[in-house]
């Protein structure tokens, strides 16, 4: 009879006490007990006598009783006294106890099993706690990231609102206009020919005996000069004067030619010689006195207030 069977048969007996329990066992044991033992039972006159018999099972567990019976060899020697106290290899053997307590199967062996299973259980719980802690950690850092994202978005919206505000949109438009204006002023400065300076200077190059009739200077520098004088010689001298004319130590005209000339004699004998001269003006020689101002501080100096200082700001 194995241990399980012992336990299964012992289960109902646990709730019984005294002789009733013992009497129930007696016929079921059959040959498990010796005849002498049956006789001892039959000889018992009182319940006390029966209980006080040392060989009688006093435990309230039938399993212990049965194990005790099993552990007895035919000679009546109790093997459980040596085997049950020192079980080898975890083999389960039932041993009775006088005190009627639990047997070794339930008290001694399960202690090691419980110890190892408790450690395993602890590890499992620790792992579970670590997993829960990890989840809480990711939840918290996720929440932190979400709140940080909201904060950054708020900052971005705030800064964007400032950028798109009327204050800075005006600044942008003003800066763009200013930059374009400065570029145009630089272009104007480069293109400027000081006509107001040229006109008085060209008059200095006109001989005294020559009367200017017309003078034209085109945008590309082509000069046409028409005048009258009193002789061919004077016309030729005027041509020579214009050829030799220098501005800022540089020859102002190139390709000067006497295009036409004629002689008219009036009824009174006065001689007039109309002539025309053409040439190419070197405009670069007139660049030195250029003034480009914003109008309020126009001077004769070379102050060019093109607002170039405004370009110092890289953001413009």
């Amino acid at each position, binding site marked *: 009879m194995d241990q399980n069977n012992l336990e299964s048969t012992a289960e109902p007996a646990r709730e019984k006490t005294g002789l009733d329990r013992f009497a129930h066992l007696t016929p079921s044991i059959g040959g498990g007990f010796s005849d002498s033992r049956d006789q001892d039972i039959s000889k018992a006159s009182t319940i006390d006598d029966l209980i006080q018999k040392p060989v009688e099972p006093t435990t309230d567990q039938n399993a212990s009783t049965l194990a005790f019976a099993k552990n007895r060899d035919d000679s009546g020697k109790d093997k459980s006294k040596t085997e049950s106290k020192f079980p080898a290899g975890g083999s389960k053997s039932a041993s009775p106890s006088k005190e009627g307590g639990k047997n070794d199967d339930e008290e001694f062996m399960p202690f090691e099993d419980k110890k190892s299973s408790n450690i395993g*259980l602890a590890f*499992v719980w620790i*792992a*579970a706690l670590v*997993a*829960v802690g*990890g*989840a809480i950690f*990711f939840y918290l*850092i*996720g929440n932190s*990231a979400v709140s940080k*994202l909201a904060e*950054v978005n708020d*900052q*971005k919206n705030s*800064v*964007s609102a*400032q*950028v798109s505000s009327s204050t*800075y949109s005006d*600044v*942008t438009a*003003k*800066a763009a*206009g*200013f930059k*374009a*204006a*400065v*570029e*145009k*002023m630089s*272009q*104007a400065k480069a*293109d*400027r020919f*000081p*006509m*107001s300076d*040229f006109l*008085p200077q060209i008059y200095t190059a006109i001989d005294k005996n020559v009367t200017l*009739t*017309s*003078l*034209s*200077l*085109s*945008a590309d520098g082509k000069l046409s000069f028409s005048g009258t004088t009193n002789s061919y010689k004077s016309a030729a001298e005027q041509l020579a004067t214009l050829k030799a004319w220098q501005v800022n130590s540089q020859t102002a005209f190139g390709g000067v030619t006497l295009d036409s000339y004629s002689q008219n004699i009036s009824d009174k004998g006065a001689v007039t010689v109309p002539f025309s001269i053409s040439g190419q003006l070197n405009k670069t020689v007139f660049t030195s006195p250029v*003034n480009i*101002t*914003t*109008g*309020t501080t126009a001077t004769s100096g070379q102050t060019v207030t093109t*607002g170039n*200082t*405004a370009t110092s*700001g890289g*953001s*413009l």
Partner: protein
Amino acid sequence: MKKNSSNTPVIIAVVIMLISFAVSYFMLIPNYRTTNEKLALAQQDLSTVQNQLDALQKTKADLDDLGPTVDQVLVAVPADVDAPDFITELEAMTAKYGTYLPTVQLSANANGNVDLAFSATGSFSDMTSLMKSVESDIRVMNIESMSVSSNKDKMTVSLQIEAYKR
């Protein structure tokens, strides 16, 4: 029955562990990654917008430092040339030197500026002064070409002017 009851804590612990892992792996970590990516983009946008704001603030400071020069430059090179105002201004300019404007013609040129042709009659000094006034006007103008015809004390000057606009 005993074994089942003793396994219950283990089962509970394993279930908790699995649920925690699942929640972390399938929900919390992906959410965290997504949020972090959004955060990086938002920070990049914030940096860009902040740089724009810094540039605008610097521009504003530069313009403030320049003071009235900015307005003068903007007037000198206007966004557009308003013809009536421009002609009125020229008329006042010529009248200042005792001359008058027989003809005025405005047209746009290829440089995006405005060409203005007009003629004036007066003395030599008046014409010289007129040209100086044109060149030193608050509006940026260049005299492109000139034609002078002289008749005794009076001279007639025809000027073609380029008025700059931005």
